[in-house]
């Protein structure tokens, strides 16, 4: 699913540099990226998703050489083929839960909001237990409910790759387990590849693979 | 040959001149008709018949004279409907008699700029009607003025002044026809002067003879011709009341008058009683305030003069 070769990346305004000679993630697997803060975990997620471009090397995701795409192509690739879940949920405060879930279909012309999409969104919401909250604004949901809504948004396009960045970082233990259950049930059913950034060692056993970023040549204050 | 040519030429020239003259006359008539046709006749309303007569005499085809008071009503006391007042409002000129005649005009909404008071020029010669009862509010309160006698047209010299006021108003309204109005007025003035002479002659024969008026409408006649006149309140078509006869009796005791002037033919019973009990001869002197059944103002007034003359004889 993911293939990285001779990758080098540095932010222009800091000393941090990420260097990965080789990394691969098999399709339909679950992989955790662990490591201390500042070790480049989120940066690599962004590189895999095509949000950032490396200074050198190649990133191939789901058969597409992301590093060879234009900006527009990368966005199109991302909106259709990559589901993203963030630590802070990143729901838009002025949209209802349903509209937040449908968001990818409204922000890129490659996707068309058809009636079956709405049905799928409602189905996902039902599955994660927030079907009765679809017409509410995010501020009226609990933390766990918000993250579940964010998960629905991420998987609505049925992406082959799901990238989550500290998905349970802001959740209490009960909700953490609920969200993880939802994620893992989903990926096992759908055959989606899951890559998750985490620094929570207690959840590592759930993942099939673990990539420790301390093994990479990363330079910077925490390297 | 030459002489014949000269005579023919002469006849030819004369013919031309004659045709030219006729054309000139036709032109003048056509010109007049064009004037009127272009702007239409002046619409004139009057409050009594004599003014209507004067306006027609003076205005001719330049005026459309309208006098809408019904024939059986006294124009002095007529109360027009709102529709009739609206008709007056639409006139080009409204001729008023003055002297308080036609009280309805005081309570109607009439356009001031169209009103012409035909007595305005001689208001100092107006006569106060005696015996009128006036009222006041409070000892120092507003007084109502005494009423004026208003049958001004019974004095031909005043009638001339009224006619003059009509001529002036028509000429102001249509200056291009002033010459026509002048000519017509002069003719009317001549007729009225003749009438004045006839009445003067008839009245002079009555000199010194007391006269009674059946109604107080002959003040201007009396004033002009020096007639010793006092009045009662008898109606020609009604039998006088007992109080009325008593008033007459008292009046006759003070000064016995052999003649009574009537606005119209009195009832035979009244005429008879006047003759027998009071030795009073009744004669009709019509004030002609409304349109006569036959004839016109001038004929009616001449007939009045003749009847007055006959009595004197």
């Amino acid at each position, binding site marked *: 699913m993911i293939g990285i070769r001779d990758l080098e990346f540095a932010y222009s305004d800091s000393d941090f540099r990420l260097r990965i000679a080789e990394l691969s993630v098999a399709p339909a697997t679950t992989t955790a990226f662990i490591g201390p803060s500042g070790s480049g975990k989120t940066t690599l997620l962004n590189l895999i998703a095509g949000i950032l471009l490396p200074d050198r090397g190649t990133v191939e995701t789901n058969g597409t050489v992301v590093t060879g795409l234009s900006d527009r192509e990368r966005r199109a690739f991302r909106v259709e083929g990559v589901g993203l879940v963030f630590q802070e949920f990143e729901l*838009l405060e002025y949209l209802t839960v349903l509209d937040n879930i449908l968001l990818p279909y409204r922000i890129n012309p490659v996707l068309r909001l058809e009636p079956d999409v709405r049905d799928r969104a409602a189905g996902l919401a039902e599955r994660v237990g927030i079907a009765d909250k679809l017409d509410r604004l995010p501020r009226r949901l609990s933390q766990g409910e918000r993250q579940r809504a964010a998960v629905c948004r991420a998987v609505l396009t049925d992406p082959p790759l799901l990238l989550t960045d500290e998905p349970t970082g802001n959740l209490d233990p009960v909700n953490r387990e609920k969200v993880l259950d939802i994620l893992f049930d989903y990926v096992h059913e759908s055959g989606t590849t899951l890559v998750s950034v985490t620094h929570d060692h207690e959840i590592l056993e759930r993942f099939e693979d673990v990539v420790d970023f301390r093994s990479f040549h990363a330079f910077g204050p925490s390297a | 040959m030459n002489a014949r040519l000269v005579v023919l030429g002469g006849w030819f020239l004369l013919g031309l001149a004659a045709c030219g003259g006729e054309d000139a006359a036709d032109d003048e008539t056509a010109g007049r008709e064009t004037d009127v046709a272009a702007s239409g006749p002046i619409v004139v309303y009057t409050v009594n018949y004599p003014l209507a007569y004067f306006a027609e005499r003076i205005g001719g085809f330049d005026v459309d004279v309208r006098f809408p008071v019904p024939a059986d009503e006294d124009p002095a006391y007529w109360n027009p409907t709102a529709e009739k007042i609206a008709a007056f409002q639409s006139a080009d000129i409204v001729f008023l008699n003055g002297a308080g005649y036609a009280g309805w005009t005081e309570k109607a909404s009439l356009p001031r700029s169209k009103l012409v008071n035909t007595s305005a020029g001689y208001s100092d010669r107006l006569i106060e009607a005696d015996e009128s009862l006036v009222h006041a509010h409070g000892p120092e309160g507003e007084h109502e003025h005494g009423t004026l006698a208003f049958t001004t047209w019974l004095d031909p010299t005043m009638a001339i002044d009224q006619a003059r006021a009509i001529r002036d108003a028509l000429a102001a309204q249509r200056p291009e026809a002033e010459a026509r109005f002048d000519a017509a007025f002069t003719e009317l003035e001549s007729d009225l002067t003749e009438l004045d002479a006839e009445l003067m002659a008839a009245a002079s024969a009555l000199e010194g003879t007391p006269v009674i008026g059946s109604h107080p409408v002959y003040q201007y006649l009396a004033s002009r011709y020096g007639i010793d006149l006092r009045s009662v309140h008898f109606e020609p078509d009604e039998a006088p009341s007992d109080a009325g006869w008593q008033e007459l009796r008292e009046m006759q005791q003070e000064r016995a008058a052999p003649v009574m002037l009537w606005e119209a033919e009195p009832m035979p019973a009244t005429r008879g009683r006047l003759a027998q009990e009071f030795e009073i001869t009744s004669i009709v002197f019509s004030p002609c305030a409304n349109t006569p059944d036959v004839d016109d103002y001038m004929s009616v007034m001449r007939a009045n003069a003749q009847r007055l003359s006959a009595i004197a004889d």
Partner: protein
Amino acid sequence: MSGTSYLAWRYLVFHRWKTAVLVTALTLILFLPIGLRVLVRQSSEQLTSRAEATPLLVGAPGSPTELVLNSLYFGSDVPATIPYTESELVAGTGLATPIPLYVRYRVRDQPIVGTTPEYYGFRGLELANGRLPAILGEAVLGAAAARALDVGVGEHVISSPESVFDIAGVYPLRMQVTGILEFSDTPDDDAVLVDIKTAWVIEGLGHGHQDLARPEAAAGVLRREGNVVIGNASVMQYNEITPENIDSFHFHGDPSAFPATAVIAVPTDDKASALLQGRYQDGASIQIVRPDAVMAELLGTVFTVERYVVAGAAIVGLATLATTLLVFLLSLRQRSRERETLSKIGGSPGAITALMGSEIVFVLALSLTLAALLTWLASRYGAEAARAVVGL
């Protein structure tokens, strides 16, 4: 609705109070200078055209502005009166047609205009229904007056007392409405028009009562002196003129001394106008004014004030624009995280820009639309509203 349009709409609805405040502020700063200008120009045009249509005005010495405002716009300040004979004097010159006015009394808030029938033709007033007044005690109403008083042809209006405390003062007169005029978009629309004699009856200069000479009126007789019957205070006066009692109505005193607030003089031509003005030049007991000149002076002051107000509004407007710009910039900054999220999950730059910019575009568009609407309303109804506010 397209994707970003929908998202933009939801954003605006969520921030509706902020949006409303921004729209209100922008609308006002856009509308105020324009609207004020439109209002002032329109009002002045109306006032000017009315003044230009009134060639000359004769009145008592005093403020020409007060004379013009009362005579043309029926303002509630009543100037000193002149005797009615001044109207006859104008007629007597042969230089102008006089139209006397007596504008003093009211039927509730509507001015009673006492005048003569020439007034209707002079002002070009047409009847919508009914007829013009024919006799004392009748009235014709302007279109707005009829609406305000809620009366129709055949109904009645009653003149209002000048002061509720003046119990010995003017008696209210009940007048029959004979007609209603077509809307003319002039102060005549608000007027109750009567013959000037009817206004004198309201004043108390004329009245009707039982004939004191008749036996039935004995209770009202104080005493008799010769042929004068003196009535006492119990004589009841009629408060309405009807066909049954009109004969009893009469005036006490000399009508040529009765009051008028002004006389409109319509000269025959320019030369006559100049001659007539020359006759009243010394202005000791009477003045003659040209309403167009009076209004021009008054409006000159108004335009000066308008310029200052517009300048002030422009400065305030600039400050408001700057503040609005600041609000937009802060809003954009506040939404930077939203922009980042949208970009991360694959939003196109066009969609993101459209979404961010939609707030500004919508607020501007709505403000412009509302400002245009308010300007149209000002041009359509502003003059009327201004008249109502100013009390003209």
